[in-house]
């Protein structure tokens, strides 16, 4: 034997799944909703998406270079963050606002906490919160074709009649953030992630289900039309994007199925409470951020049972 053999501890085979493959699947799943955003809001949406992704990737690259770490932008996680941030701003946002958001998400929320997997909250959502509070005017105004329009949820909140029909909301023909409007394509992407086993069902089902039940009870108690009220809440805001793509973020949601159910229910209650009684018409992003903070606690409370614990011995 002239060549040396590899020697390492078992196991000697690995599943084909990689981090890059998982992130790639998320990008694929997000693609249809982005195309819908560009279709409904115009090419400016595409520009903001490009700025979001490019600045997130570049920020990660520079950050890792500066810290003399291995550059891992190839794992596509920064691209996912940049894309999600762009999906979470209205088309009338300035390109530099999106850039600031991406840089904040990557540098402050992700890299300063240790990089991929170590962030405490969802980077894209934290950045969106920063943008919303820094430029409350422009980021919270939604324009279609240069004309300011109210989102279905804000009309619902102020007691006005909702302009968009349920079908419009389902398809995405309504005011809102770039990537959140097309419920049907977001659900399609979510189903893709479920089929590919990138995400598990617990978070989206518990989250969406809780919002449906909560708003349904509210509608019944206040004498509103239950189905219209509930469906407007499910389809008219950022719930689908949040439930399938943001709340399921690996790093910031619990590990076990039970933990994820609790997390999803928590997100659903907070979202409903903020929407029904809070100061904002939309509450998906803040509720996910708040539940992100509860994740370590949920993990601690829902540890899997270890084989053979509390089992009596034969002798």
């Amino acid at each position, binding site marked *: *034997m002239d*060549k*040396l*053999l*590899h*020697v*390492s*501890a*078992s*196991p*000697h*085979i*690995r*599943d084909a*799944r*990689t*981090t890059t*493959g*998982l992130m790639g699947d998320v990008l694929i799943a997000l693609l249809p909703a982005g195309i819908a955003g560009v279709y409904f809001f115009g090419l400016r949406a595409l520009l903001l998406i490009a700025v979001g992704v490019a600045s997130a990737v570049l920020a990660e690259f520079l950050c890792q270079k500066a810290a003399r770490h291995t550059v*891992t932008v190839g*794992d596509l*996680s920064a691209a996912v963050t940049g894309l999600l941030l762009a999906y979470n701003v209205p088309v009338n946002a300035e390109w530099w606002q999106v850039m600031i958001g991406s840089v904040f998400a990557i540098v402050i929320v992700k890299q300063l906490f240790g*990089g*991929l*997997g*170590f962030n405490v909250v969802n980077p894209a959502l934290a950045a969106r919160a920063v943008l919303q509070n820094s430029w409350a005017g422009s980021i919270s105004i939604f324009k279609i074709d240069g004309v300011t329009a109210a989102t279905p949820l804000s009309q619902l909140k102020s007691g006005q009649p909702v302009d968009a029909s349920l079908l419009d909301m389902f398809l995405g023909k309504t005011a809102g953030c770039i990537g959140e409007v097309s419920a049907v394509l977001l659900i399609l992407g979510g189903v893709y992630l479920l089929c590919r086993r990138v995400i598990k069902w617990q978070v989206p089902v518990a989250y969406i289900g809780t919002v449906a039940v909560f708003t349904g009870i509210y509608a019944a108690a206040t004498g509103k039309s239950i189905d219209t009220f509930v469906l407007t809440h499910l389809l008219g805001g950022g719930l689908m994007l949040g439930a399938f793509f943001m709340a399921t973020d*690996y*790093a910031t949601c619990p*590990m*076990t199925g039970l933990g994820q159910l609790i997390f999803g229910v928590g997100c659903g209650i907070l979202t409903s409470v903020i929407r029904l009684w809070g100061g904002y018409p939309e509450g998906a992003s803040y509720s996910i951020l708040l539940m992100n903070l509860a994740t370590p606690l949920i993990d601690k409370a829902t*540890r*899997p*049972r*270890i*084989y*053979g*614990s509390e*089992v*009596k*011995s*034969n*002798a």
Partner: protein
Amino acid sequence: MKALTFKGGVHPLHRQHEGKPLSKDAALREFSPAVVVIPMSQHIGAPCKPCVSVGDRVLLGQLIGEPGGFVSAPIHASVSGKVIAVEPRPHVNGTNVLSVVIENDGKDELDPSVQPKGTLDSLSPDEIKKIILEAGIVGMGGAAFPTHVKYAVKPDQKVDYLILNGAECEPYLTSDHRMMLEHSDRIALGAALLKKASGAPVCIIGIENNKPDAIEAMTKAVEKYEGISVAVLKTKYPQGGEKQLIKAVTGREVPRGGLPIAAGCIVSNVSTAAAVADAVYKGMPLVRRAVTVTGSVKQPSNFIAPCGTLYTDLFEACGGYEGEVAKIISGGPMMGLAVADPGIPTTKGTSGITVFSTKEYKPVVESNCIRCARCVDVCPVGLEPYILNAAALRSNVDVLREKDAMSCINCGCCTYVCPAKRDLAQSIALGKKILAKAAKK
């Protein structure tokens, strides 16, 4: 009937039918090497002391190594011939181990001690256990724990189930499969003997449902014995792990840190049962066993090979390597031991040898844990491998203890599924060593 199973686990290589088609149809063939190198340590426990010298002529089945303690097993000559060396030789564990080297004369001349010892009806449980001890029988599933120790049940312990492990959940390996097909009667007879020795009222033979022919053969073979049956198991790794098998078959769990007997169970491999039948009915000690040689060899095969056969001889008998060799594994790819030197001998615990070429084995690079929870989902023990990994890398004894690294069974499912390619199971094994060291202080 619904296949029995446990919680967690993985299904490696399911698109390639667990890698088994390579060798599953290759009938067992006798292999007679020119030289055997018989290490004096082929089991868990104290090594044996050689009782033959250079120049001696030894006969097949003759005692050549006396046990070094209670947890030990005698070693016998696996061929007849001349002892040409008694010296340390490379061993699968990576060190040099004192070995008896015998030049095979090819005659297989039997030692006079190899005589039938009795029958199932004529022998008492204690007599069967004594025969098992003298025949040097160890667990043949891989761990090689001396069988007589396993069956030395204390008077206050009750054995409710004897479980024979025919799961063969390790990808690639097919030696137990071939044994169950070609030697089902011997296994059934061994099962009856072990059932009597253990005092268990029932014996259940667990077989994964990817081996329907073995299930059929064994079901037929056990018909004539009372209290012995076959249980169909789901094809999933580590279905043949002792604790997982007990859970799947009986619904019971072995208490944390305990042995199967604490759950009223004894688990033995099907090949071990066949060895017991030989020891009783022929008086033949454990000197030969089924060995699968598979992966990147020209002709993947199942051999009946004398213990002490060199890997290189087996590779030659398989027509040599296919492609460029990257890794040679004693055992299967999930729990097998990668070897540095192919010039080592098989032992009583060698159920197979898997050869990986540069096509099948590509080194991976670790990246950050993304907290995807796959390791938690697949852990058959219910551990949190990602936390243990971080704790082991930081030598954090408190976390290793709190998160119970000691309960890890080293099945490797966590490492297998990790998309970040982290060496989870490997680091937990390290964590166990850290804990053992801390406990000594």
